[in-house]
């Protein structure tokens, strides 16, 4: 039981750290925003593991949900402005 809980904590922390590194080092706006939403979900999971359900609620609602949606809208406008002036687009991300 205790060893399982330690293993769970280790996996959670390693995933959170890897997600943070990938988020900070990503070059595209949209990719960074989606990774940020996933990071907020995992951070809420960490708060839930630490027996703080109110903090997990606030993190999931504000950190992952609302600011994630706002940042998606902002990233869309920024990329639209960049492509309309003819600079580099994120065309390498197209299917």
């Amino acid at each position, binding site marked *: 039981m205790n060893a399982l809980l330690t293993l769970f904590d280790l996996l959670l922390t390693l995933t959170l750290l890897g997600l943070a590194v990938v988020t900070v080092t990503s070059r595209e706006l*949209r990719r960074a925003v989606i990774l940020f939403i996933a990071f907020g979900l995992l951070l809420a999971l960490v708060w839930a593991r630490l027996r703080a359900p109110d903090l997990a609620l606030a993190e999931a609602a504000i950190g992952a949900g609302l600011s994630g949606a706002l940042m998606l809208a902002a990233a*869309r406008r920024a*990329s*639209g402005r960049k*492509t309309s002036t003819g600079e580099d*687009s*994120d*065309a390498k*991300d*197209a*299917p």
Partner: protein
Amino acid sequence: MDPLQLLSGALLLVGAFFFIAGTVGLIRLHDRFSRLHALTKADNVGLGFIVLGLMPLAPDLFYGLKLVLVWLLVVIAGATGAHLIAKRALRGDGEDVL
């Protein structure tokens, strides 16, 4: 070990299997629509079995109703999201296909 706990454990195992299958499908499949298919299976069936397995452990009726409410919301969100993503991919009108 009474039979109710045994049933609960079996249902939880089935749910975990569906989650594993969905994750493997999301990583291994090549087409976008196949990946969408794998994702929705993990969403609906996997979480449904996990909620069903947690149901005998619920302390009171209200908690059980909340469990069912979580599953219903996930099903609605999953269906809406899958339709939106598939429509966006079919029409090719997203911002990533400029």
